[in-house]
């Protein structure tokens, strides 16, 4: 199971700020698309990190079952 963490406004939109998901697809872009749909996150902009490293090109990244994936939106307040 891969661990998925949601930050900022995204955490409000999912039931828990952290969840474990079964990795059906090895492709990060597809996995992110599935989670976006599951939690209705289509209207939000965010970056994705895997094992605490921000990934620029999701389409070529392979996810493994032990990975930790983070959804990182920009914060605005100050």
């Amino acid at each position, binding site marked *: 199971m891969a661990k998925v*963490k949601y930050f900022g406004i995204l955490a409000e939109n999912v039931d828990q700020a952290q969840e474990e998901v079964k990795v059906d697809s090895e492709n990060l872009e597809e996995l992110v698309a599935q989670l976006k749909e599951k939690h209705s996150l289509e209207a939000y902009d965010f970056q994705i990190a895997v094992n605490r490293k921000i990934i620029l090109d999701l389409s070529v990244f392979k996810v493994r079952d032990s990975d930790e994936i983070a959804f990182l939106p920009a*914060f605005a*307040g*100050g």
Partner: protein
Amino acid sequence: MDYSRQTILPQWDEAAQQKLKNSKILIVGAGGLGAAILPYLAAAGVGQLGIIDGDRIEASNLPRQVIYSESQIGSLKAEVASAYLKSRYSELSLVSYTAFLNETNASEIIQNFDLLIDATDDIATRYLIDEVCLAAGIPWVYGSIHQFEGQVSVFNFNNGPGYRDLFPIQSRSAITCSEAGVLGPTVGLIGMLQANEALKIIAGIGVSLSGKLLIYNLLTNSQDIFEISKKQANPSEEHKFRPSFISIADAIQSQAILLDVRTFGELPEVVHKRNIQIPLAELVDRWQNLDLDQELVIFCQSGARSAQAAELLNGLGFQKIKLIKGGAKELAEKLIYEKDIS
């Protein structure tokens, strides 16, 4: 002022104190983050502080903007913050700007400082800061809040990544403290982390958050640090392409394509028969729309993105590239003046 409790630190000697004394730091925003950052930097012995904010003090600010008082509601934050610090630290030099940082004033103001601290509550201003700091070669400390969470990073430091490398797409969905809610200690803590990063950068000590995004959650006390990669067109290229500049008048008279690398919808609109708009982020996919032999004059809002576009296009084989002196605003004004619109 007696800084002996600082200078007895093994990492912070007299030389570090002197570097701080010689430094000029601009704080953009005198709200929640600014009210935490300003007194601590002033007390530590910064030589000059710049404060820019066009906002006035409101009653709803007081629970977290602790340098302001009830009797000051309605007054300009930049003026009140400046007076507060002036009355306490006689050796501190202060410059206050009672305006918001914008495309017209940003370059002129920022170039007077060695370091900038972002204490705004606005994402668009952060892209502006990123662009102007990149062009001016000035590092900046980012801080931002969402309810009980805060983000901190250091951008444009020692050739490290910028805000655009972290968030290439401007968020449509982020909300401010006035919309999302906030408690004083959250802005206080994130402001402290920013002030601390600034002191480390000035003195050259410790490990900065350059290339890293820290997210601190005050509800759980958890800290996560993420590594940021820097987007580079030609990472292996040692010599940066240095394009020449062309005046707006010469650019209009030339036969060159006027390449606008701003994002669609950015104002002012530039209307000209030889104008082509390809946003910087799309250039890597759409450069084939340009002719390799055609002369190009590139422009954006302040010059930072056009410099990046020039480097990228040069790496792809374009040789006839010039950058416009000025930006879209000056070009649009000149075109309207000359009625050269097709």
